């Protein structure tokens, strides 16, 4: 039997199983699932399954083990590492509904969260104190946005929230996402206390409950290699009262990116050592970063941020944290005479964060070209050097660098955008290679893609020790090797999907 016929045979068997088990699915040439937030593709999947609970997951995994079918878990598909894309022959398992639906399978946008303490005992938020260590027990398909809506009335929030607040907790865990709250709580995996996962034996599915914190941390960033995570206990934190909070805007401008980076790098080092904060974010301002009619241009405090003398570059840095813990910030800023410091309100902070989020996305008639969009600089003293190399490499290209200041490093995101023509895309690819060569160097203490996971770039950018670690983890949880076996093949390579767009 040819490989194609064998593949078709197992898809047919799986379809028959799904119909019998009444698990919703879609089959055919599924162009709409050909990529995730990475714009990378491994081809067009032909089957996507939408289990709604653990029982359906277990039945599906059992079937997969018995029939030797590869499964690729997918949350909401916002990941930027290509790990939620499926190679031909694999079955995509969309876990968005997991634990987020009623018995009929309908998602409810509003829900009453179950809150537990560190031992897993139900807790009452109404009686909770600000120092209590509490968790929400949520289905893996739930999102931070939904959960925060449910918690807001009680004055609590999910502790670690990536900018993609609509991504699933299952995805956040599998990529070990970072975001607001990371400076205080670490990456997402550190904020998970317990989980349930449908893993395999050589004979079929097994459902495991992982309660050991160290084991949970080991699993964080598993990239779907170990099983389908179905439920998690996710750390929550009280929302500080506005009067206890401080939001700060720091701004510096110069013609010299290296000088900007060196100054801000020095400042960040001091902030990391002397302040405790929830969020530290930065962006570079250019004339087009907000639309001419954007109301933010009229804001008496923020408007000036977007007016830029010709030839100069402005970098702005935003911090948010409790007043207690941020006392040193104005003093530190004052020690850097070129840095303008001002306190802003939370709505102003949010408005600037919206600019930051849109800055990476805005791509008028263009597509984002992936490649080196996410790197972390461990030694802030190197920030100036890295920035000057980066700006020299990306000179003239569209795309805007933005980033986070985490206490353990500076995370930079940069993604060029290209018009959908072969020439433009090839130019963007070439530029990315230049950028990689310029900045991804150990002597600069720069590492690729810490935040969004390695995904399809595991072998290109990951260390041999990371490969080994994932192999060991996989052997323990997935001895049947049904989950994303392709990710551990060194030759696997995603292709940029934008070259196939017909726009």
């Amino acid at each position: 039997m040819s490989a194609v016929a064998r593949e078709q045979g197992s898809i047919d068997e799986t379809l028959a199983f799904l119909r019998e088990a009444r698990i919703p699915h879609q089959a055919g040439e599924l162009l709409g699932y050909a990529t995730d937030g990475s714009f990378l593709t491994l081809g067009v999947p032909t089957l996507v399954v939408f289990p709604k609970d653990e029982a359906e997951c277990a039945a599906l995994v059992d079937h997969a083990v018995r029939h030797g079918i590869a499964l690729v878990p997918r949350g909401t598909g916002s990941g930027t590492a290509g790990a939620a894309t499926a190679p031909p022959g694999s079955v995509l398992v969309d876990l968005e509904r997991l634990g987020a639906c009623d018995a009929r399978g309908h998602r409810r946008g509003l829900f009453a969260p179950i809150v537990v303490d560190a031992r897993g005992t139900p807790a009452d938020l109404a009686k909770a104190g600000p120092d209590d260590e509490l968790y929400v027990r949520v289905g893996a398909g739930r999102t931070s946005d939904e959960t925060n809506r449910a918690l807001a009335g009680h004055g609590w929030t999910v502790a670690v929230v990536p900018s993609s607040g609509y991504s699933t907790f299952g995805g956040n865990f599998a990529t070990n996402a970072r975001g607001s709250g990371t400076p205080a709580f670490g990456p997402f995996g550190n904020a998970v206390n317990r989980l349930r996962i449908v893993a395999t034996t050589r004979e079929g599915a097994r459902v495991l409950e992982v309660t050991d914190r160290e084991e949970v941390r080991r699993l964080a960033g598993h990239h779907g290699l170990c099983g389908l995570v179905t439920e998690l206990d996710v750390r929550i934190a009280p929302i500080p009262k506005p009067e206890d909070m401080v939001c700060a805007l720091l701004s510096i401008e110069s013609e010299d990116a290296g000088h900007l980076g060196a100054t801000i790098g020095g400042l960040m080092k001091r902030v990391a050592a002397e302040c405790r904060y929830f969020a530290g974010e930065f962006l570079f301002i250019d004339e087009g970063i907000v639309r001419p009619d954007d109301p933010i241009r009229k804001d008496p405090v923020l408007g000036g941020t977007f007016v830029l003398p010709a030839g100069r570059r402005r970098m702005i840095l935003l911090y948010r944290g409790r007043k207690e813990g941020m006392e040193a910030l104005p003093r530190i800023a004052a020690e850097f005479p070129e840095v303008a410091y001002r306190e802003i309100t939370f709505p102003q902070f949010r408005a600037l964060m919206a600019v930051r989020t849109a800055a990476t996305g805005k791509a008028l008639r263009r597509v984002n070209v992936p490649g080196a969009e996410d790197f972390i600089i461990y030694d802030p003293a190197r920030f100036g050097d890295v920035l000057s190399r980066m700006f020299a490499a990306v000179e003239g290209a569209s795309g805007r660098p933005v980033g986070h200041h985490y206490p353990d490093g500076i995370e930079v995101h940069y993604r060029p955008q290209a018009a959908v023509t072969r020439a433009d895309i090839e130019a963007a690819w070439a530029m990315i290679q230049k950028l990689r060569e310029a900045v991804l160097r150990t002597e600069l203490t720069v590492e690729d893609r810490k935040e969004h996971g390695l995904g399809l770039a595991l072998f290109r950018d990951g260390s041999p020790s990371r490969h080994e670690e994932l192999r060991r983890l996989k052997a323990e949880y997935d001895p049947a090797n049904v989950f994303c076996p392709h990710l551990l093949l060194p030759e696997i390579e995603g292709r940029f999907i934008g070259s196939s767009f017909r726009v």
Partner: protein
Amino acid sequence: MEALAPPAGAPDEALRILAQEGCIQCNKCTMNCPVHRVDVTFSPRKTILQAYLGGSDALSERDLWACLTCGECQAVCATEVPFPAFIRAKREALRSVRERTAPCKHGGYKEILAKIMAKPNLNQDRRGWIGDGLQVADAGDVIYFTGCMPYLDGVFTYTDTARIGKAAIKVMNAAGIVPMVSNAERCCGHDALWNGDRETFETLARRNVEWIRASGAKRLVTTCAECYSMLKYEYPKVVGDLNVEVVHMTQLIQELVAAGKLAFTKPVDLTVTYQDPCRLGRHSKEYDAPRAVLRAIPGVKLVEMDRIRENSMCCGVGAYANCDAQTKFLQQERLEEAASKAENLVTACPHCRIHFSCYLDGQPVDPLPDLKIIDVTDLAAQALG
């Protein structure tokens, strides 16, 4: 990989609408789309990617009509991808090719009504519902554009939509305005436009603008969010300037109260929550006037729902194109949210009121506490001494 070879042929207009704001494939739209919550296979992001790769005609019949065109996806999208405009363009483009139309819930009633309204030399009595004690005129500075309201009560017997019109006239009369109600008025064309029948929409727009311009009126008031969005934003694209200022009734009331020309003297002791209609809210960016009216009425206590303004959830039906069994779960979800805040749900669009009332009049899919659906203008009229 074969399937991903770039297809030949120029992109169509609908695809151009999508492409002008680059989609970053983040899926935020889908996670905020009400239809996705009841049908996991429906996803704006998926549709966009499919269109990019395979052309926009690949859209399935289900995906074409299931979209409520509510605009929640666009409101949350970091790059503001205009998905509803894409759907509208696609409905328009595919209409002639495949001769398909919206699977209308009411035997094509609204579609037939619009088509009849587009005919020349119509002889209508559009004032029969007004009743005694209310003053309207054949001419004047202010037009009250009633929309399809006079024709709705024959079908949606459980709603008494005409009471919104009576309330509007009562409020205007109380402020010394005797509005013009014209027998020459036609359907605004909202459903025709959103369901892809541009020809009927444009005919209706031209017929309406003819009498509106000839009237010499300075202002045109609507109580319907759909009429408002058509006359204010879509007509000028087709017929140019209307020579009148188009206002929603809530904007007029807010203005009259602020100018001291209208006073609410009778308390209306109700706890209410407010449904932002898609056409008034996200489509027209008017969120404040209806809330200002509610705050001006003595006795009314406004308790907001969790999802409001830009993030408000749709009433479940857009342009009468997509009401099915799954719609009922959306309506249940939204009404549960409303009922958790108040006993009364106020809206500023007769169609939201119809769709919600219809749901409550039928068999709710889950138990619901008593909830009354009220139009904001009706509430304002109750507060007049």
